[in-house]
């Protein structure tokens, strides 16, 4: 297995965290993994993205230029990364705020209204975890249990109260791409 | 016949002969610093930092563990030493090119952090080692090899008063300006140096003694003329006294 994923969106949409939780989940299920953020001034309010590579074997390039999956949380990210996805790849689109439809026909596109789903669950902040659920639902790259273990580790201690809502969000995301 | 010892050189100076010019103040100040270290019983725990400038070979003269620092960086080097050996007595010995020009950031921030070190600052209003160029402390009108018509205030600014400046910084604990142009002033200088080391060892913060010191060679004067020039020209611009004591 070799999954090369780009998570992209506005700063503040939890894009980097999404990648980190997925990476932790991949580590949890015994894969090799690397997480590489974009960094610098572009992080301050502009668009942010991170590359995650998950593999059965040691990882070569941690920098992903041609992802086989892209999770786009805002329109500029979709415009930037849709063309980069390898044929047969997957794109997950935050349809709550992106009105565009994919022009590529050689990839599978899922439209997930993750903001709306998160609001229905009662916490708008978990939109990123909804999207992460959609990603694992669409690709099966990392198991639900492994991602939940990562979420438990990430929200251990003071933030433990948030684990339940994040579990609901993850499941709702998976259901959205069934 | 019985003999009586009337004077003995401090053991905190080595037997290496000073290389300083006739009438230079460095030799006087070296002895004062060494005597204070000896009298306070600090020699076994003292680590000194020599500058770049006329006192570059101070590490050959002070009979304690010594460092030689890059030009102006002695306060940073002393910070490194003191932070890993906080129980030691750490001092820097710096001239006005070293401290007041290339090393202003280091001295200001050593004071700003309240580093528990002592700085002996020799102000002779000129660059000595390189042969008499203008220093930030050179007086307006004073002729040097890089201000041949005398320092022009509009062109080169007015001399910087280091003791007053550092006294404004919260982290400084003891700042005094002295001179070594007379016996009375030399005795006062020694007292000030002792006070500075006491301040350090009490953990109160940064201490600095600025010492007005003659440079007959580069001033183009005899040693006696230089003492007088210092009194007539430097002291009016650089008033003596305690600038800060906490």
């Amino acid at each position, binding site marked *: 297995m070799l999954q090369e994923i780009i998570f992209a969106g506005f700063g503040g949409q939890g894009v980097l965290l999404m990648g*980190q939780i997925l*990476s*932790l989940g991949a*580590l949890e299920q015994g894969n*090799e*993994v*690397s*997480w*590489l*953020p974009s*960094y*610098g*001034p572009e992080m301050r309010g502009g668009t942010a993205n991170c590359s995650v590579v998950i593999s059965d074997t*040691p*990882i*070569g*390039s*941690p*920098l992903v*230029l*041609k992802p086989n999956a892209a999770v786009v949380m805002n329109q500029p990210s979709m415009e930037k990364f849709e063309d980069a996805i390898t044929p047969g790849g997957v794109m997950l689109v935050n349809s709550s705020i992106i009105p565009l439809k994919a022009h590529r026909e050689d990839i599978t596109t899922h439209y997930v209204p993750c903001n709306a789903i998160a609001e229905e669950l009662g916490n708008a902040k978990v939109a990123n975890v909804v999207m992460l659920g959609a990603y694992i639902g669409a690709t099966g790259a990392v198991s639900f249990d492994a991602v939940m273990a990562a979420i438990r580790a990430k929200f251990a201690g003071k933030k433990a109260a948030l684990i339940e809502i994040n579990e609901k969000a993850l499941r709702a995301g998976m259901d959205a791409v069934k | 016949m019985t003999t009586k010892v009337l004077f003995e050189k401090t*053991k905190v100076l080595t037997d290496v002969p000073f290389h300083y010019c006739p009438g230079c103040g460095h030799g006087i100040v070296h002895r004062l610093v060494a005597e204070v270290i000896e009298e306070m019983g600090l*020699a*076994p*725990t*003292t*680590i000194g*930092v020599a500058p770049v400038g006329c006192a*570059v070979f101070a*590490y*050959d003269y002070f*009979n*304690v*563990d*010594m*460092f*030689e*620092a*890059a030009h102006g*960086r002695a306060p*940073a*080097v*002393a*910070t*490194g*030493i*003191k*932070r*890993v*050996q906080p129980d*030691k007595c750490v001092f820097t010995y710096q001239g006005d090119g070293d401290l007041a020009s290339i090393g202003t*950031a*280091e001295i*200001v*921030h050593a004071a*700003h*952090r309240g580093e528990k070190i002592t700085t002996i600052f020799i102000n002779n209003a000129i660059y000595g080692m390189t042969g008499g160029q203008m220093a930030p402390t050179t007086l307006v009108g004073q002729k040097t090899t890089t201000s041949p018509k005398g320092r022009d205030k509009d062109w080169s600014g007015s001399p910087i008063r280091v003791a007053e400046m550092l006294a404004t910084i919260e982290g400084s604990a003891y700042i005094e300006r002295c001179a070594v142009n007379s016996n009375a002033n030399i005795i006062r200088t020694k007292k000030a140096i002792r006070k500075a080391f006491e301040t350090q060892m009490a953990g109160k913060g940064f201490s600095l003694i600025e010492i007005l010191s003659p440079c007959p060679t580069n001033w183009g004067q005899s040693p006696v003329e230089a003492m007088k020039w210092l009194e007539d020209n430097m002291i009016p611009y650089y008033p003596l006294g305690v600038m800060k004591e906490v």
Partner: protein
Amino acid sequence: MAKKLMKGCEAIAEAAVQAGCRCYFGYPITPQTDIPEYLSARMPEVGGVFVQAESEIAAANMVYGAAGAGARVMTSSSSPGISLKQEALSTIAGAELPCVVLNVMRGGPGIGGIAPSQGDYYQATRGGGHGDYRQIVLAPASVQEAADIMYGSFALADKYRMIVMVLADGFIGQMMEPVDLPMGATPEVEKPWAATGWTPESDRPRAVINSLYIKEPDLTKLHERFAARYAEIEANEVRYEAYQLEDAEFVIYAYGTMARICKSAIAILANEGIKVGMVRPITLWPFPTKAVYEAAALDSVKSTLTVEISAGQMFDDVRIGVNGVKPTEFLGYAGSKIPTVDEIVAKIKSMKGVE
């Protein structure tokens, strides 16, 4: 111990603490500010020293003071900050003191950019500051290797009384990967030369920590000591990774993250039946000159390719190593433009003469 997902900078900083480093002086600069941030919290926990200096210049001179006082000490920065530190690094080299310096490289010259680069190879391997001196330079290619290298650097610096520079690119600093952190302090050596307070009754000579050797032949003698030490290091400390060299038709030379990107290209080429091997220098000084030659000299090898995020700096050392035994080609860009997997694949194919 289970592996932990850690950011490169944090893994490097923690590895330094594990190795027994108790002293850090630094100044914030992207992309390595995670190091001072991490250590500002961590050093007090272990009774160590953390000072955010007023400048890179001051920080490096504090390192000089602490190293001369016998401490295990480090500083870190990124390219423009490393330039500022060179005054003190030259002084530290001249005074024969041990310390560890991390450079998380970004693009230059000048303020340059903040994206990853390998543009400081010359500066790192040719001394950096003025004067005829060397420093040991180690280049990690993963977060785990960065932690391992940082961990071992202090003992290496102590052993040879030299600067060890860890030369990482911005990827290594910012990337998260699983890490198994090395634990337990590495062996310390006696430092009878350190300035720790002295009296005439002490059982060692008075310490004078100094880089001024104004009376000949003192400076000549210093360089004779350097030459002997450097020869010993060249004989004992060369490290590199030899990767899939068996039956290789082409050899790639690359270091740091660039070597990882090359591995992805090598995998693609292998799928198409083109066998490519790689020599990845881990020590940039001492450079694995012999390994570079031996790989190029293999009967199966037709030609070689050096890939860097620079205009071709390590390429000079590769050419010295290959020494004309096979052709040498280069792929790379100055600044922060990174040769891509596709470009590497295309370059090797063009060297083979296929589309």
